[in-house]
């Protein structure tokens, strides 16, 4: 091994999934002690490539060199031995285990756990200090917020002695504060001479932290550039193959009547924990109301109540001037009938039935609509026709309505859900995390669609953990913290700092 | 021309260690004596009963023996459909001109072993373990209880049934536990009429130093010293005779009731248990046997209660 050789080098790597050529002749070189970004549209092959490096998948052709010497990486064990660690896009943690148990899994040390656990506890204390990665090692992972889970993943890699750390879309689920913290950690890692590979859809992050960036499109590597020699527009164009608008272009809102409001709404969960505290909110036609906040501060419950799947413990829900709190109509099914659309925060968990075809997902929540039924029978041809229309209008790829939902990429799944809810032409649309995990080309499109709806006089509520998104999309912003709304402000007055403070629980106007 | 006897065993299968196996033994004895092969079938599904009879009729069986009360309906149908064929059913009456029904007075045999149990018991408590709570088993139980009470009017008789599914006939573990529960309550002699479940009962008696009474065939050999006696029900003889008489041409339709008098039921004394049955007991048992045959003792038949 020579000091000048790159930490990781890929030569002409190829990977097929059946007929899909997911990685075509990929070559890549990552210098030691650098942060290397990889960007690309949904389905471009980024995760696949990194899974190959990690030994989770095997390349069909090609070579992998670690520190200049060829390495046969055909299982994660080999890559761990080669000093590679990976934080997967979907976390690879056992929810029912404690942090400590998760970390030692696979490197327990001895047949008895006790010794391994003690050793790990001491070692983790050291790592935590060195990289300021505080976690409660005895907490059960399932109870932790995503940001902390990610730290656990990073600790897991470091504990295994990773010199090269791969992160696949690490900020997709993080709040800005959490993301900032992550970047500080990554910087520390770089200072310590570790190598980081970062996959992300957020060009801002690429510009802010990487040394070099590689761009993938449709399974191919289309460019390698030094970050300092490029900018966001150029990268976006490389990625999508055309120029992309990175800002939302919109006129001023014309707010009209209030469509839905919440009055003194409280919600106690099954364990009696107060999740929503005295929420008052008006959602107006012709306006996009954005809810900003660190995830886990009550947004999910808020969405569920407005969507009719949860009942408030106290307070009123007023819909089109009528108090529906205690009406029989206050449920997800009937709310849809009277004009509510709902794009849930988590498309996998609730927005889609992954094992159903796209067209069967087209009617989820609307399956009793006359247009999908002939008498008692579901009208498959009508379902397919509607789905085809959605696919065309929202540019979903692939264009096959009979393909299972699980076969679409996350971005395209998101478009399917959005299409379903928007094409019903609701009077009010609730949208949770509209663009999570979605590439910039699709973000542009989704944002345009939302603005168009607003301009058509619909009421829209957007919940997002992306400050950027809320700021550029919303006309009015409410910030949630600890189950309460800490403040509301006009989008024009919003700045990142202001919002950031409010999201941390500091009341509006009270400067820290 | 060819003589082709046939026998259809019921659900328990021909090796059920009791009723069906006795029939099997009878058929085997016939084969040994005459060298004539017989057709056989073991039923596993309710509707196979009738089907098996049809098959055998089609194969030109000279006589078809159906084992067990559950086959009555099938015999009835098959006998009507094949009026020229001979049928013998064991344990049930089917009143047709080409059917011979052989039934046993199990209550009489049970009465005697009940007496034996009560006389042997030190504790004045004896037990009965049946397979399933159905009339046939109650017939055993009632005879047993009457016998026990006859020998000792203060005797306490515990009764247990194994289960409600077909598994009840093949659950020695449960049988053993039921026996132990009766031992715990003070019983020191148990009588099992529960098919394969019985083996567990006998084993438990042996393990706990108590006495057990076998059923259907002579099971004394299973655990010499533990098996007090067996309530024999000579199904083997009945089957063998049915075959034999059909061969000789002496087979007669109608009802044959086999009780103590006909030696169709009884209790077994052999080299394995002769030390357990005292002369005094033998005397009383023989007296009771004579009284029952003479009609001096009336044993209640559960079926005609």
């Amino acid at each position, binding site marked *: 091994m020579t000091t000048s050789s790159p930490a990781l080098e890929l030569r002409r790597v190829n990977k097929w999934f059946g007929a899909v050529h997911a990685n075509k002749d990929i070559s890549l070189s990552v210098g030691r002690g650098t942060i290397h970004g990889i960007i690309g549209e949904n389905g471009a092959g980024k995760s696949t490539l990194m899974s190959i490096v990690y030994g989770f998948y095997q390349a069909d052709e090609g070579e992998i060199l670690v520190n200049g010497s060829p390495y046969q990486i055909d299982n994660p064990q080999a890559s761990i031995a080669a000093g590679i660690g990976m934080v997967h896009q979907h976390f*690879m943690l*056992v929810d029912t285990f404690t942090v400590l148990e998760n970390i030692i899994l696979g*490197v327990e040390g001895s047949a008895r756990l006790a010794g391994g656990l003690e050793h790990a506890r001491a070692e983790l204390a050291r790592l935590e200090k060195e990289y300021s990665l505080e976690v409660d090692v005895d907490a059960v992972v399932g109870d932790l917020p995503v940001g902390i889970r990610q730290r656990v993943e990073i600790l897991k890699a470091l504990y295994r002695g990773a010199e090269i750390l791969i992160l696949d879309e690490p900020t997709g689920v993080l709040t800005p504060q959490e993301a900032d913290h992550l970047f500080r950690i990554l910087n520390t890692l770089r200072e310590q001479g570790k190598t980081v590979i970062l996959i992300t859809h957020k060009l801002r992050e690429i510009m802010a932290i990487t040394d070099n960036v590689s761009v993938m499109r449709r399974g191919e590597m289309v460019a390698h550039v030094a970050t300092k020699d490029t900018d966001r527009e150029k990268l976006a164009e490389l990625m999508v193959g055309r120029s992309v608008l990175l800002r939302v272009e919109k006129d001023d809102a014309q707010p009209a009547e209030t469509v839905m409001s919440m009055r003194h709404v409280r919600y106690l969960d099954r364990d009696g924990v107060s999740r929503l505290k005295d929420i008052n909110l008006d959602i107006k036609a012709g306006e996009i109301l954005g809810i900003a906040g660190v995830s886990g501060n009550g947004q999910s419950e808020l969405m569920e109540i407005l969507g009719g799947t949860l009942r408030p413990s106290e307070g009123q829900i007023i819909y089109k001037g009528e108090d529906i709190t205690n009406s029989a109509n206050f449920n997800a099914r009937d709310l849809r009938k009277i004009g509510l659309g709902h794009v849930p925060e988590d498309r996998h968990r609730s927005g889609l039935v992954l094992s159903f075809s796209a067209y069967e997902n087209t009617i989820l929540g609307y399956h009793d609509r006359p247009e999908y039924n002939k008498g008692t029978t579901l009208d498959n041809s009508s379902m397919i026709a509607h789905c085809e229309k959605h696919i065309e209008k929202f540019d979903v790829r692939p264009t096959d309505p009979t393909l299972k939902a699980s076969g679409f990429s996350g971005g395209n799944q998101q478009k399917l859900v959005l299409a379903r809810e928007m094409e019903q032409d609701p009077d009010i649309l609730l949208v949770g995390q509209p663009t999570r995990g979605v590439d910039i080309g699709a973000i542009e499109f989704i944002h345009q669609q939302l603005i168009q709806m607003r301009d058509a006089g619909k009421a829209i509520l957007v919940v997002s953990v992306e400050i950027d998104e809320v700021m550029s999309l919303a006309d009015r912003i409410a910030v949630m913290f600890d189950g309460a709304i800490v403040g509301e402000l006009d989008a024009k007055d919003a700045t990142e700092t202001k919002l950031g403070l409010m999201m941390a629980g500091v009341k509006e106007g009270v400067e820290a | 021309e060819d003589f082709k006897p046939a026998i259809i065993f019921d659900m328990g299968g021909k090796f059920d260690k009791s009723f069906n196996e006795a029939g099997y033994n009878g058929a085997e004895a016939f084969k040994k004596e005459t060298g004539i092969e017989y057709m056989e079938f073991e039923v596993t599904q309710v509707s196979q009963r009738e089907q098996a009879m049809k098959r055998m009729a089609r194969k030109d069986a000279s006589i078809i023996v159906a084992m067990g009360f559950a086959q009555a309906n099938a015999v009835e149908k098959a006998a009507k459909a094949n009026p020229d064929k001979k049928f013998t059913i064991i344990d049930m009456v089917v009143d047709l001109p080409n059917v011979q029904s052989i039934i046993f007075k199990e209550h009489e045999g049970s009465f005697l072993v009940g007496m034996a149990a009560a006389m042997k018991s030190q504790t004045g408590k004896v037990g009965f373990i049946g397979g399933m709570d159905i009339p046939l088993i109650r017939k055993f139980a009632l005879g047993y209880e009457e016998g026990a009470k006859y020998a000792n009017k203060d005797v306490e008789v515990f009764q247990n049934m194994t289960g409600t599914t077909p598994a009840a006939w093949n*659950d*020695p573990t449960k049988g053993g*536990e039921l026996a132990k529960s009766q031992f715990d309550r003070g019983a020191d002699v148990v009588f099992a009429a529960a098919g394969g479940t019985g083996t567990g009962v006998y084993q438990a008696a042996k393990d706990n130093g108590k006495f057990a009474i076998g059923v259907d065939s002579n099971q004394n050999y299973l655990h010499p010293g533990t098996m007090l006696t067996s309530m024999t029900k000579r199904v083997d003889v009945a089957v063998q005779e049915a075959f034999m008489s059909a061969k000789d041409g002496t087979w007669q339709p109608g009802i044959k009731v086999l009780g103590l008098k006909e030696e169709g039921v009884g209790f077994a004394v052999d080299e394995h248990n002769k030390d357990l049955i005292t002369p005094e007991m033998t005397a009383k048992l023989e007296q009771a046997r004579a009284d029952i045959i003479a009609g001096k003792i009336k044993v209640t038949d559960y079926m005609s209660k």
Partner: protein
Amino acid sequence: MEYFEIFVLLMDATLRVATPLVLAAMAGMFSERSGIVDIGLEGKMLGAAFAAAAVAYVTGSAWLGLLGGIAVSMALSGLHAYACVTHNGNQVVSGMAINIVVAGLTPTLAFAWFRQGGQTPALTGDDRFSSLTLPFAEAVRDIPVIGYTYAELISGHNILVYIAAAAVPICAYILYRTRFGLRVRAVGENPHAVDTAGIVVSHLRYQALMVTGFLCGIAGSYLSTAHGAAFIRDMTAGKGYLALAALIFGKWRPVPTMFACLLFAFTDALQARLQGVDLPLVGAIPVQFIQALPYVLTVLLLAGFVGKAIPPKAIGEPYIKER
């Protein structure tokens, strides 16, 4: 004192009946915790019961019989693993297939080898595990309560009962305090996490199923060479399913599962003693309803107290990372 003695005897029966359930449920725990549904406990027990009785009879040693039972049960478990892990087969179907094949094969072989109508010959003496009298059991019998309990309830079981009793803490230890247990628990929750941690999922599941086979082998051997004294066809009589129910009842955790087994066994022992007994107020209940008591009680308990049982998350799903 009278009632106390009845109670002790009842508990004594409970222990005997619970033993195969506990062993089989612990066996099922390893399989299911590793993410493999095992409704084949029944077949494995039956196969082991046959093998144990056959080997014990032929060799004259109960211990060799036990080894034989374990070997057969582990082989069947290996078959289950081959179908479910290597070939991603449907786990329920595989378990059922094993149950059915064994139900047919054991009497066939028994008949071929012993000519006793699908049974093995009765075992006596050393062919069988006999009761052990613990030290001082007889000496302390007359000490009220404690001594009696010791002599009746604690002492006087065969070795496999004590093994079953020890199996619970041992299994709990393995599951919660060892590397193997950690990995088994992990793979049943999230096999992807295990795979990315550099552990081969299939090997791990094979290992877990071997433990299942081992424990199930003891359970089956108990039936034919300890509790009973011969193999009889279908002698498991649904105990495998009951063990599975206990496992779910106990939420896949060792100690609650053991209590579920004890509960099933207790109601069974109780039911034997309630048949034909005049109960206060209601009189003698028809025997069929007494027999249904354990099942009714289970349903009531489940509905009333136990709450939702959350199974290992990855259970029943073959692990396929790429196709």
